[in-house]
């Protein structure tokens, strides 16, 4: 059984049908990069997976639990950590508190243990010196790395990453991608929506290409960047447009 099973979902906003009878499975390993032009429903797909958006039809199972059942949402969200394009640090808390609040409140982790784990993840994202900083003392890249660490604090089985670098300048983008590459090499399961082609080429084990709410292509990265590109005009156009 795949960890995430998306089964024939349809999702629309008003009359705008974003995902149409959409199905895909994700195994519990590797990095899947989700590509596609703007407005094709990449964010919507991720948001449906962890129940931030309700689907109109179809079903999504995470670890065999249906997202349609409200009672499962908590467990599903604990299983799938999500980081958003827009950086969000809780402004009333310092970095350490941002990291340990949810494990303490939701997983009942003892404070000392949570602090130790937070230090471990802060080190991993290269911010061990920022424990006491507030959101306004952090750069965008640092905030995003903290958001990643905060998601990891919940021990998720997979990370859903929605264009986590697209609000950052190139230098900060690099910082964040380095972190993600390290996580990938440690075998953390990730679903990344991104426009960073180099990142896709380097770490993706699988590439999905969405267009018009449909899955156009689902393949390995070598195949995608060579064969699929040659065979599918739409993909070729997209890759050329994005400067690849």
């Amino acid at each position, binding site marked *: 059984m795949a960890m995430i099973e998306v089964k024939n979902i349809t999702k629309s906003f008003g009359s705008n049908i974003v995902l149409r009878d959409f199905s895909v499975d994700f195994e519990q390993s590797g990095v899947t990069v989700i590509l596609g032009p703007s407005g094709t429903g990449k964010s919507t797909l991720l948001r449906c997976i*962890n*129940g*931030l958006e309700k689907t109109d039809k179809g079903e999504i199972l995470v670890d065999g639990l249906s997202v349609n059942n409200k009672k499962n949402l*908590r467990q599903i*969200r*604990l299983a799938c*950590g*999500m980081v*958003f394009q*827009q950086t*969000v640090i*809780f*402004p*009333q808390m310092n970095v350490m508190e941002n990291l340990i*609040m*949810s494990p303490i*409140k*939701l997983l009942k982790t003892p404070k000392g243990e949570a602090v130790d784990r937070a230090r471990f993840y802060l080190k991993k994202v290269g911010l061990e010196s920022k424990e006491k900083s507030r*959101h*306004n003392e952090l750069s965008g890249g640092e905030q995003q790395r903290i*958001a990643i660490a*905060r*998601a990891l604090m*919940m021990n998720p089985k997979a990370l859903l990453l929605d264009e986590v670098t697209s609000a950052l300048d190139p230098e900060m983008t690099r910082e964040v991608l380095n972190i993600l590459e390290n996580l990938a090499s440690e075998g953390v399961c990730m679903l990344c929506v991104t426009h960073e082609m180099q990142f896709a080429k380097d770490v993706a084990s699988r590439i999905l290409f969405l267009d018009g709410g449909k899955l156009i292509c689902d393949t390995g990265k070598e195949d995608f960047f060579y064969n699929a590109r040659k065979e599918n005009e739409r993909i070729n156009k997209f890759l050329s447009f994005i400067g690849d």
Partner: protein
Amino acid sequence: MQEAHVYGKYAHFAIGDLYTFLSSCGTTLTVTLISLFLGSILGIVIGLIRCSHNKVVCTVPLVFIEPLRNSPLVVQLFLVYYGLPVVTGTLLDVYSAAILTLSLNTAAFFSVLVHNSIKAVPVAQWEVGYALGHSKASTFIHIIAQQAVRLLIPQAITLYIGQLQCSSILSLISLRDLCRVGQLLTVRTMQPFIVWGIVFFLYYAISFPLARLASYLEKRLNYSY
């Protein structure tokens, strides 16, 4: 009887007038503070109901809020003090009527501030809470509430200052507050400039520091998201 005392015995300022002023200041402050306290609590409850995602539930409080926000306080006061006893059959004393009116009025305005402050916290903060596994209530308590309170505080102080000044209207049902004592002493001493000058100064002396505090807190507490 006290009013007779003020009217009758003295024709010019006496040392007792100082006491009269101070005690009336006390009345103004007591009535206002009690009303602000009760009004804020009720306002929080109503403001939270306003935040409900259920279309019906979130509209219900408007039945309470809108009439109170869109009618003069003095009319609300007369309705409570003179009108209500006709329906309920029990007379309200001046204090109760004053506190009841000012509390309800404050609650209406306060609930709007509460609602707006909660709405002013970016949706992204909620979504991150949900994505971490928090329920709606848990997200509100652990993530949103503190941010909303920080946005609320300066606005609340500004409302409180306004309500303190509006409390002068309560003198119209003979509550012996600062304003009422001003009227009484003017009649007795025939020194309106001095009397109203003092009343003016006392209201100002209470409000001004609060106003400064509000603008200070507004700068201090504001998040730049």
